[in-house]
């Protein structure tokens, strides 16, 4: 499904901060009629985890493989631990172990979604897509909306402290082990979190209100922005509820029809494959029954809102109903609706944290179970950015002999390319690179909250350079934000 670059084509390269950071860049290819032919989001980094993890002892994997990503390490830590639970025959965790892990995961979801909203996307929403980049960042938010900036910092801190209390460290912790966890939550730790809980709930409602009001008020402008119909995939619980920690796979089409449902995670290989394209190190997943051309889908907050039948916490469920009503109960296919969906999940996460903190099982002392040893296992979790799949084979020497990892941002590879393509088609005029185009490409990518835009922007900067090149590689035009 890939084409060599015909020599008659022109090429526009957009390199976010990540160019030199090396995590991603965008190329827009024009045909001879100067129309957008294709857009490519290049992921330029390659690590080789699948191979170098081979030969490592299986119990090391949950702490090793989370080093893939320091932005949401808990997700990798838990997905690997879930796979290793099965390897040691301990997938039926004790109530304390499962609830400690869930608390860790909701803490992660809470901090990640808060970070994304306050540090990364609120500048776009509050200042507008065309605001000066000098203020359109978290430092600008701190100057103009100091209360909001403080809320963002404190909410992220709350989530990070939960991770530290359950995993041992804020980043790259060690709490989950094959078959369970290595500590419970003490009464003192619990009381520490209960103290600020009401404040977190209040701030979460406030942040959600900003995203909801913004989306509903600007619906006409946002509806076509980087949008397209697509399939959606996520885990759901056996009763169809949203479940971020565990469940079975469900995929639906753009109209809401089920492509597959309640698929056991252990069988994912029968349903999902990944296409390799020469211009990116990130593969392109697709649903096998639909093929590489049409089988791509979205994951993450928007997909989860679309696939779930309901949410099992009251406030988030009420918000879900409002969200679904906008599209008459059909799946919402708006790229910019990701932000609203993400904040409904933020509220869901803090409601879940509240529920768990009041559960005495967190102080239980039965932490680890083991059973019959297995040689192969899959662990799937809903990470902040979407479905995360870990798959391992372990030999009888306890060494990993095969590892397959499909990370959240990878599932959204084709969708992000589509969003950029849509924006480019709508906003590129001729071969001139406008500020408006730069800003909008940035905004569209950011809706998907890919790791590559995340960390750079968190420090308040997302400069962007666009180069217009002819087929010989000669620079015709350069514009920077």
């Amino acid at each position, binding site marked *: 499904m890939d084409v060599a670059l015909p020599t008659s084509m022109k090429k526009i*390269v957009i*390199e976010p*901060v*990540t*160019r*030199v*950071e*090396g*995590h991603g*860049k965008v190329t827009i290819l024009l045909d001879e009629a100067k129309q957008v032919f294709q857009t490519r989001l*290049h992921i*330029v*980094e*390659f*690590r*080789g985890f*699948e*191979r*170098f993890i081979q030969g490592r002892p299986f119990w090391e994997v949950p702490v090793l493989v989370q*080093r893939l990503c*320091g*932005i949401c390490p808990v997700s990798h830590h838990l997905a690997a631990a879930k796979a290793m639970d099965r390897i040691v025959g301990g997938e039926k965790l004790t109530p304390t172990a499962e609830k400690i892990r869930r608390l860790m995961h909701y803490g992660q979801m809470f901090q990640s979604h808060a970070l994304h909203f306050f540090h990364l996307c609120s500048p776009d929403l509050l200042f507008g897509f065309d605001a000066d980049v000098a203020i359109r960042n978290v430092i600008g938010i*701190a100057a103009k909306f100091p209360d909001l*900036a*403080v809320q963002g*910092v*404190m909410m992220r*801190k709350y989530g*990070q402290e939960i991770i530290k209390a359950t995993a*041992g*460290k*804020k*980043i*790259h912790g060690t709490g989950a082990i094959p078959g369970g966890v290595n500590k419970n939550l003490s009464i003192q730790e619990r009381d520490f979190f209960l103290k600020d809980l009401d404040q977190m709930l209040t701030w979460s409602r406030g942040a959600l209100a900003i995203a909801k009001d913004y989306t509903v008020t600007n619906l006409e402008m946002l509806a076509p922005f980087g949008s397209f119909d697509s399939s959606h995939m996520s885990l759901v619980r056996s009763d169809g509820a949203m479940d971020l920690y565990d469940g079975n796979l469900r995929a639906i089409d753009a109209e809401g029809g089920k492509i597959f449902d309640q698929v056991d995670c252990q069988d994912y*290989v029968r349903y999902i*494959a*990944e*296409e*390799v*394209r*020469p*211009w*990116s*190190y990130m*593969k392109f997943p*697709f649903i096998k029954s639909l093929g590489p051309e049409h089988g791509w889908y979205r994951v993450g907050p928007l997909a989860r809102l679309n696939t779930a039948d309901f949410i099992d916490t009251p406030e988030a469920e009420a918000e879900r109903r409002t969200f679904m009503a906008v599209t008459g109960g059909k799946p919402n296919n708006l790229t910019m609706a990701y932000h609203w969906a993400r904040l409904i999940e933020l509220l869901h996460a803090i409601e879940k944290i509240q529920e768990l903190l009041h559960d005495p099982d967190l102080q239980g002392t039965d932490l680890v179970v083991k059973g019959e040893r297995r040689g192969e296992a899959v662990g799937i979790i809903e990470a902040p950015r979407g479905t995360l799949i870990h*798959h391992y084979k372990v030999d009888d020497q306890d060494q990993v002999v*095969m590892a*397959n990892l*499909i990370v959240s941002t990878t599932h959204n590879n084709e969708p992000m390319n589509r969003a950029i393509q849509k924006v480019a088609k709508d906003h590129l005029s001729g071969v001139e690179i406008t500020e408006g185009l730069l800003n909008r490409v940035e905004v569209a990518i950011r809706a998907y909250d890919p790791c590559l835009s*995340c*960390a*750079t922007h*968190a*420090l*308040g*900067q997302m*400069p962007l*350079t666009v180069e217009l090149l002819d087929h010989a590689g000669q620079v015709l035009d350069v514009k*920077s934000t």
Partner: protein
Amino acid sequence: MAKPKVATTSLAGCFGCHMSVLDIDERILKLVELIDFDKSPIDDIKHFSGRCLVGLVEGGCCNEENVHVLQEFRKHCDVLIALGDCATMGGIPALRNTIPLQECLDEAYRNGPTVHNPSGTIPNDPDLPLLLNRVYPVQEVVKIDYFLPGCPPSADTIWAALTALLSNQKIDLPYELIKYD
């Protein structure tokens, strides 16, 4: 007087060290009063808006672009700090150093159980930077002034080092701030 500038970059890292910078929490609001984060430290040489007092480098070098960025950082920063274990000694990505690169690529793009790759192509577009034969710690490429160990270094460690540098003090970190997991 203009505030000193601080530039940061993530090479072959996981952004965990950058997240640890954010874990200074409310102190970040104080930090931005003391310094300016360089507007585009990691975009292109012409985007370095001036001389930087401090450069924080996360991650080692796994491709030609990492090397280029690191050299630019050395050129523009008075003090260059290797932030975390990957910068200091390659870290987890350097586990590939004992394995031929081709085997790593084959596993990811040809052998994996979900790979669909009828032509057996390995990504090789000119837009992708060339991978190095192995992952290099940053001090094997440029001179480094300070090393902050840890995976990641804790927020308190980063804060203590930065504030010492900014106030012209000797960086003197107690054991608790530089011990490992």
